[in-house]
């Protein structure tokens, strides 16, 4: 009996330990980015973000003037009981009492810093990165040595608004269109109903790459390349098969009696749809809405193709990819920019996770 219990305890520890390990593995990348986005630009470049945790680092406690001691840098020297050459001192020499001697400067005019290892944290947090990334105008940066540098901001603020202007209609429009269609497929009789629905099912897995070249040609002909309308329609087209399929599954399963009694009362299809079906379908609408919103907000390819010609309508993923391409080493901008692109999806995701999971479970194959 005792062994049975201890076995269960070990099992529990193993399971929770493994889970904790995986959770850490999955969380640390995002956490590192988040922390770095608040660190000073110089600090990001100099040390790893994990230095915000307590760690031991060398700190200068005393400075020895080389000339005062009258040392000859061409031969091994005796300093504080340690003998070392100039080259060794440049790299840093550890003394037996745990200190470190480092020669700073050249042979003649140098100084030796006596350093000790102490526990420290690098908490030099700042909001500058976000200010620079969000601002659209020139941004004044004061360097530690007092010089002022003017750099253009990255206008993530404008891109964020563009993303909103793209993602909100590109979420609601397909849902509206799909809900009307799903209602017709479920509760109306018309010629071609079955054939048209088979088309919806067949299009579920068609890769959107197939449509990009022809649609871009159509847009060029219509003169709507680079407009919001163009990308709303594109996202609507690519999201519609899944939306129609999911909403059909939900709407066709609603109880027949409710609808019939409404029709007996003389309600038209339009009224029934508006007053009865839409309110009853809120769970299904919400789960697809989250799915589509995340998809559109995070999309890069479709935006690149249909908005790429117009810098005025650039969305956040495009802005971020631009900085990766042009200034891939400016980590203070990349981390802050990346976090700005993530913030809204993360809020949506955490506040509406239940609906999102339900939507995934209802069917999740997307073309």
């Amino acid at each position, binding site marked *: 009996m005792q062994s049975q219990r201890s076995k269960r305890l070990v099992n529990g520890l193993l399971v929770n330990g*493994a889970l904790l390990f995986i959770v850490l593995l*999955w*969380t640390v*990348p*995002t956490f*590192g980015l988040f922390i770095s986005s608040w660190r000073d630009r110089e600090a990001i470049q100099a*040390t*790893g*973000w*994990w230095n915000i945790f307590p760690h031991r680092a060398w700190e200068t406690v005393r400075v020895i003037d080389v000339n005062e001691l009258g040392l000859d840098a061409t031969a091994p020297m005796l300093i504080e009981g340690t003998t070392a050459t100039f080259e060794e001192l440049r790299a840093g020499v550890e003394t037996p009492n745990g200190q470190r001697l480092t020669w700073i400067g050249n042979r003649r005019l140098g100084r030796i810093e006596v350093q000790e290892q102490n526990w420290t944290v690098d908490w030099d947090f700042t909001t500058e990165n976000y200010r620079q990334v969000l601002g659209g105008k020139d941004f004044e940066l004061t360097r530690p040595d007092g010089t002022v540098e003017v750099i253009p901001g990255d206008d993530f603020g404008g891109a964020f*608004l*563009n993303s909103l202007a793209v993602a*909100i*209609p590109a979420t609601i*429009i397909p849902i*509206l*269109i799909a809900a009307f*269609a799903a209602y017709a497929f479920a509760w109306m009789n*018309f010629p071609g109903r079955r054939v048209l629905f088979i*088309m919806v*099912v067949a*299009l*579920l897995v*068609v*890769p*959107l*790459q*197939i*449509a*990009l*070249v*022809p649609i871009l040609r159509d847009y060029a002909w219509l003169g709507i390349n680079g*407009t*919001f*309308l163009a990308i709303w329609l594109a996202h*609507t087209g690519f999201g*519609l*098969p899944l939306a129609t399929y999911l909403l059909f599954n939900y709407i*066709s399963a609603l109880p027949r009696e409710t609808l019939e009694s409404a029709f007996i009362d003389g309600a038209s*299809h339009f009224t029934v*749809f508006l007053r009865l079906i839409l309110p009853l379908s809120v769970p299904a609408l919400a789960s697809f809405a989250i799915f589509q919103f*995340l998809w559109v907000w*995070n*999309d890069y*390819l479709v935006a690149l193709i249909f908005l790429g010609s117009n810098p*005025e309508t650039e969305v956040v*993923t495009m802005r*971020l*990819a631009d900085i*990766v391409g042009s200034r891939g080493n400016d980590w203070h901008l*990349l981390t802050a920019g990346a976090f700005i*692109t*993530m913030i809204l999806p*993360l809020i949506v*995701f955490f506040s509406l996770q239940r609906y999102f999971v339900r939507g*995934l*479970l209802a069917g*999740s*194959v*997307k073309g």
Partner: protein
Amino acid sequence: MQYDSSNEELSTGSRILATVLRILLMVAIPLIAFFVMYQGFLFLRAGDAPKWLVTIVAIIWGVGGVAALYWIFNWLVEQMGDRWRAALQPFVFVGPAVAILIWYLALPTFRTFWLSLFGRDGPPRGASLSETFGAMVGLSNYGAVFTDRLMREAFRNNLMWIVFGATITVLMGLLIAVLADRSKFERIGKSFIFLPMAISFVGAGVIWNFIYEVRPENVPQIGLLNAIVVGLGGQPQDWPRWAAVIPWNNLFLIVIAIWLQAGFAMVLFSAALKGIPSDLMEAGRVDGANEIQIFFRIMVPYIMGTIITVSTTVVIFTLKIFDVVWVMTGGQVSTEVIATQFFRQSFIARNSGYGSAIAIVLLVTVIPVMIYNLRQFREQEAF
């Protein structure tokens, strides 16, 4: 019933007037609506208003416009007689969806196939039929797709993406689901692993570029992976761009997709595992099966349907992988995949024939899944 003749006349007159008015209205209201929407379009395209105003107008115009279209067309149909209404109303409901599906997905498959039969500029404009057929290059684009060095590299890499990326995603998802199912911290644990689902591939590219960041040997590493490697006494590397280990440098990109998608697999498996009746597992335990046997003999067969669904979804997704490669390496260092080649050929090299042939190859690879879906649909008989 007593009718005045004058009254009768008046009612005929007013009826005609009402009909005329109604027809006028039926024409005028859509016209006004289209005019208002066109003005909105012009306002948005001009884009000289403040950004926040443009955003708000765009949202209202887009969403309101679509709603208004439905309302107007329905109103038009309801003005007609009963017979017309019954015949036309379904098409008001289903028409926009069908039109968009045909325009955006159904027709493009044929149009792209047609384009793939021509050279880089597509079929000649305004040419006669014989000229058009004369300009055809036949299947030579497809020949190039399967022989070109970069395309062969892309096929090999996509195969790696599927063999490692899709497989490990599914296995990780299953492992996490099983672990979480037995843990007290199931909800919170699953939330954290699910979180990357909300992050874009571009954002994930930045996150992982930062992890892979490399510094010269003599300065502190700021990338986590290299810091660990150096801490263990190894050499810092620029992992995804590490030319010496081609093609295995692709694995460092594949890891990102696993990180993003494992949560998706986990959620579906988790729900499926909850559906296994507990007496089934209990019976297995009573018969003396250990946990591993229970997993392979009871759990896996029971959730086989979910495993197939998740696997096909992840494979289809992996097949079309684009953003992460494009943002991280741009296809350099032998990391090209089919979708990046498609983009490069179609939109950078502007070779529409070749690009279209690549898109058709992508389409052909998902056709088995399409057939499977259609067969499933036919079996449901719910329709």
